[in-house]
Every structure is written in structure tokens, then in C-alpha cells.
């Protein structure tokens, strides 16, 4: 698929902008701070309903404006589509597809698929595990939009359960007394008073610990049910992504490596009678043996799983075991929100060991692998390379350019034309002063 038009109103620095696009390579050239990345960000927003730079929508709206509007026209094998998104910070976005309003904004996910390379990608390798989990989940949603709901449900359950653990921990540390007079009991008291049943509610309350344990059990069920679904999705994603990462790393680094990825869950996954046959090639997918000796989840872990019910049972058991520690610390310690996608170069974990160049190769390899995977699913995603060439040495720059040059559509931003490799000379636009003009 490719974008044929991008129009912005009150988005970031743009009062309005209208850009006509074609398949092939388009380069956007302009000094820093003139709004090139804002264009890349807008395209990414249409695909993911999120920004790669900020966690909230408020910065996306031009200062002084109430809302931003992004319009994108897409041509794909399934026909043309026009997406219009009204970005309303703090409120629900309004989304129209081919002029028809969608009941939920997230139903637009999957219509435009993009893979965005940005300077921030270095954090995929050097940053917190949360960066890598987000990479996996974003890709999961791009491939199967229903995971957007799974993901947001899971995040809400974690928040609910964390709130419960914190209040429960506080109660227990106060000596296990029933917190009858503690804060939130007011609403119940008033309901009880109205129903005339006030005396019966408080008397006969069992020990605080067992009542709280029962409530935790109920949230454990939710966490395990939705968590297992998310985990199963991530495990099968890592399984299909791995060969692409290995190949992409070799290509972009000039046959250095090998590099690999392995999913490291926060609890021991079920072992279904040893690794399945034909999967031995992944035996060396075990990260270097340097990390987590005897820790949860080691050999060939991501070649199994996928069985939702087994995962759910295993997660429930792990939750039972972790409970004392969770109560003590007031944190959810088990589940996909604590998992790690481990990256490895040679025998060493990338984080902390990889050089700057190796880290860049690995970050690019992850994005390229995402691109290859989305491609094999069906349509070519739109590739966006936002200011990345300036970050790379000449070798990586040229190899990356050759790797992406064949994509259906590539949108490149750079501060100076010299940053763009020769393989990616396409239609050029100058970006500056809030306007976009066709260059020479």
C-alpha cells in the first residue's frame, strides 16, 4: 500500500499542510526544527493512533488550537481509503473512514500499516524492557488489530490489581485489622444505611486477610485470562519474527553477528513434553547463558507456548507463588508487563554489551524485520525513515538504503540532501517555514 495524500490541520507546527505523495521514494529535506518529523509523526499516528515521540496527544495539537485533524488517502490492493482523524486531547478521537464515522477510533487500526525508523529507535536496544515490549505489542496490533483491545484490557487489569495490592499491603502492615473506617468505606456505609442493613455488614466480616485474598483471586483470574492471550500473541510473534531479525542484522551490519532475539517471560512457561521436532535450529536461541542462570524461562521457551489454556494455568500458579512478595512491594510481579524481549549480539546480551554501531544495527534489524513480516502477511507497509541516516556510518547507511529501496513506498526525512544515500533519490520536497514545496 502507499499514501497518495497527507493533509494536516493544526497538527504540531502546521496550521495547515497538504502533501501529495506517490509510490516510490519521497524525500523531505529541511533544517532541523522546521517540521519534517511532524509529518512522519502524523503518518505514524494514522497507522497506530499514537506518536512515536510522546505518550499523550496534547503536544500533537498546535498551540492555541483545540483539535488537530489528520487526513490520509491510501491506495492499496484492496482499493482506496480515506482516513480522517480528529485528535481531541483528553477526549475520544473522532475517526472517519471513507467519510463514514467509526464508532470506535481503534477500528481504524490496520487500515494503514507503517514501519517507522527514527533516532528514538536506539532505545529499543539501550532502553528499558518497556521499549521492547511496546515494539512487540505495536507489531502485534498492526498484524491483528484485535490485540489493541487485549492490550488495553490487560493494562487496565494491571492498574486495578496494583491498586488492590497497594491498599491490601497497607492494611496488612497495619496489623491485619479490618479497615472498616479506612477511606473508601463511605459509599458502602451510605448504601447500607439506606437499605437499613448497616449493622449486618460490619459484624461477621472474616479476617481482613482472607477477604482480601479472595478479591485478589478474582483479579488474578482476569490477569491470567487476558495476560495469557497477550503472552500467546507475543510468543508466536517472536517465533515468526526471529528469522527476519537474524537475516536483517546480517544484511545491515555487513555480515557481522549473529544477532538473535528471545522472549524471556516473568514466570516459567509450561513445557509440553520437550521442544517440538524440527525446532532444534532455535536451540541456540537461548541467550548466551550469561543471564538468569536457572531463572524462569530459559531453553527454547519461545518455541512453545501458544496454548492459551496452558499459559493461563501456568500464570495463575506463578501468581499464587508470587503473592507474598507482591503484597510486600505493592507491585504486580508476574505477567507480560514484566517480560523482556532479550536481544543478543554474538554470545552477549545487546543491552550493556553492544557497541553504538552494533546497537544501531540491531535497532534497524528489528524495524526491518517488522517490515518483512508485515510484507509477508500481505501488503507492503509504508516505510518512513525519519532522520535516521544522519545517525549511521556510511556502511550502514548504504546497506540500509539498498534494503529499503525496493519497498512500495519510502518516505525519508533529512536535514541536508547529502545525508540521503544515492539509492534513495526520489521525489524531493523542501520543508521550511511551515510550508512544503516541491524541490528540484
Amino acid at each position, binding site marked *: 500500500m502507499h499514501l497518495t495524500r497527507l493533509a494536516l490541520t493544526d497538527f504540531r507546527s502546521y496550521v495547515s499542510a497538504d502533501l501529495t505523495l506517490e509510490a516510490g521514494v519521497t524525500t523531505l529535506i529541511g533544517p532541523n526544527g522546521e517540521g519534517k518529523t511532524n509529518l512522519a509523526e502524523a503518518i505514524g499516528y494514522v497507522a497506530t493512533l499514537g506518536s512515536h515521540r510522546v505518550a499523550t496527544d496534547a503536544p500533537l495539537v498546535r498551540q492555541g488550537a483545540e483539535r488537530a485533524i489528520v487526513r490520509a488517502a491510501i491506495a492499496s490492493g484492496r482499493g482506496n481509503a480515506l482516513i480522517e482523524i480528529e485528535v481531541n486531547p483528553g477526549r475520544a478521537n473522532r475517526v472517519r473512514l471513507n467519510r463514514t464515522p467509526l464508532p470506535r477510533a481503534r477500528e481504524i487500526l490496520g487500515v494503514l500499516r507503517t514501519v517507522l525508523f527514527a533516532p528514538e529507535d536506539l532505545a529499543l536496544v539501550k532502553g528499558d524492557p518497556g521499549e521492547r515490549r511496546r515494539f512487540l505489542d505495536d507489531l502485534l496490533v498492526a498484524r491483528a488489530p484485535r490485540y489493541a483491545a487485549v492490550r488495553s484490557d490487560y493494562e487496565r487489569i494491571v492498574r486495578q490489581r496494583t491498586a488492590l495490592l497497594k491498599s491490601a499491603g497497607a492494611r496488612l502492615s497495619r496489623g491485619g485489622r479490618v479497615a472498616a473506617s479506612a477511606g473508601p468505606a463511605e459509599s458502602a456505609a451510605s448504601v447500607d444505611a*439506606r437499605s437499613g442493613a448497616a449493622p449486618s455488614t460490619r459484624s461477621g466480616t472474616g479476617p481482613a486477610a482472607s477477604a482480601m485474598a479472595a478479591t485478589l483471586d478474582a483479579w488474578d483470574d482476569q490477569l491470567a485470562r487476558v495476560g495469557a492471550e497477550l503472552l500467546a500473541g507475543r510468543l508466536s510473534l517472536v517465533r515468526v519474527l526471529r528469522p527476519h531479525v537474524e537475516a536483517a542484522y546480517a544484511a545491515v551490519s555487513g555480515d557481522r553477528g549473529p544477532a538473535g532475539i528471545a522472549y524471556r517471560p516473568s514466570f516459567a512457561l509450561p513445557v509440553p513434553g520437550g521442544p517440538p521436532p524440527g525446532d532444534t535450529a532455535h536451540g541456540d536461541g537461548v541467550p548466551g547463558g550469561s543471564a538468569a542462570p536457572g531463572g524462569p524461562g530459559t531453553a527454547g521457551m519461545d518455541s512453545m507456548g501458544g496454548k492459551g489454556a496452558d499459559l493461563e494455568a501456568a500464570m495463575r500458579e506463578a501468581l499464587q507463588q508470587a503473592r507474598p512478595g507482591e503484597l510486600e512491594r505493592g507491585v504486580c510481579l508476574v505477567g507480560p508487563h514484566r517480560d523482556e524481549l532479550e536481544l543478543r549480539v554474538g554470545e552477549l546480551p545487546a543491552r550493556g554489551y553492544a557497541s553504538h554501531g552494533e546497537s544501531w544495527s540491531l535497532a534497524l534489524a528489528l524495524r526491518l524485520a517488522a517490515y518483512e513480516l508485515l510484507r509477508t502477511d500481505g501488503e507492503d507497509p509504508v516505510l518512513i525513515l525519519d532522520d535516521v541516516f544522519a545517525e549511521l556510518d556510511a556502511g550502514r547507511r548504504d546497506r540500509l538504503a539498498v534494503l529499503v529501496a525496493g519497498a512500495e513506498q519510502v518516505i525519508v526525512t533529512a536535514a541536508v540532501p547529502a545525508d540521503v544515500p544515492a539509492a534513495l533519490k526520489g521525489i524531493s520536497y523542501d520543508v521550511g517555514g511551515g510550508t512544503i514545496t516541491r524541490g528540484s
Partner: protein
Amino acid sequence: MYEGVIQNLIDELGRLPGVGPKGAQRIAFHLLAADPDDARKLAAALLEVTERVKFCRTCGNVAEADQCRICLDPRRDPSIICVVEEPKDVAAVEKIREYRGRYHVLGGAISPIDGIGPEELRIKELMTRLADGTVTELILATDPNLEGEATATYLARLIKPTGVRVTRPASGLPVGGDLEYADEVTLGRAFEGRRLLDV
């Protein structure tokens, strides 16, 4: 901003659920333009509802007496209780017109973020109602969202030892709707709970 009393009315209306600042303004000027008798009737109804409506001591539903009309109705089957979150859910289930059992209103759902745990809900009262063995089935009709599911799970675990049959309404496709308009979660649930077509 308007003169004191008008602004006052607009502010009060604006605090109601589902009424924004513009809606509040519209209602306020509608009341001003309408027959003063209409406004008086509305005021009287508001006063009456706050003074006369109580909560049923058995089920927690809204009632004008000590107990609600459903709990007082001898034709309602005392062996089935439908558990819901709010009194408005009772009205929703009553629309079926075929459910002949009784109700229990919890007064919300378990939500630790909002400080609502089982102690804040009318769960003790529910257990009391189950004690004498009359009730044989409990229908857990809490909302099909995360908090509702957690509440249903909590109750199911709590009630299991009593031997009372615990059921939950199915989630699925809206009747009379188009398949293509169903969201992916609903559709997924509906596929999960598919039935054998026995012909």
C-alpha cells in the same frame, strides 16, 4: 456567565451525568420559557424522589416502601436471583418480561482504583439471602467489562461451596444487527461461545 440565579441553575444542571455546559444552558432557558407550572412539577418530582425513594432492604433495588415491589410480589420465583450492579440494570432485565426470579443489586462493581472492594458492595446481604437454601440459581448479570467480570468471578468463587448453581449471561452478537458492525471483541466472544446447530 448569566445573572446569579440563572447561572446557578445552569451550574446545578451541568453537574448531572450526561449534561454538558451547553446542554445545561439549553435546559435552563427551556424551563424559563415554559409554563411555570411545568417547572413546578419538575421541582416537585425532584423533591419527591429524594424524600420518598428508598432502597429495598432485601435486594437493594429502588423502592417506595421498606421493600421493593419485586421482592413483595408473591408470584416471583424466590429460587432464582439475578445479581446486577445498579438499580437501572434491574429495569433493563425486567424488559425481557420473561424473567420471573428476583434480584440483588450490588451497588457497583469491584474496582480497587476507585477504592471499591467486596466490603463496599452488598455482598453480605446476598450471602444472607442464600443461607436458608431457598435459592438454587444465581445469575451473575454484572456488566460485561473488566470490573464486572472480576466481580462475577469473585462471587462465583465465594458461592461455589454453597452448591448454588451459578450462571452468567452469554456475550455475543446483538440480535437484529449486522455481523459486519460487531466490534472484534464481541465477535471474538461470540465465536468462542458458538453453539452446535442441531437440526
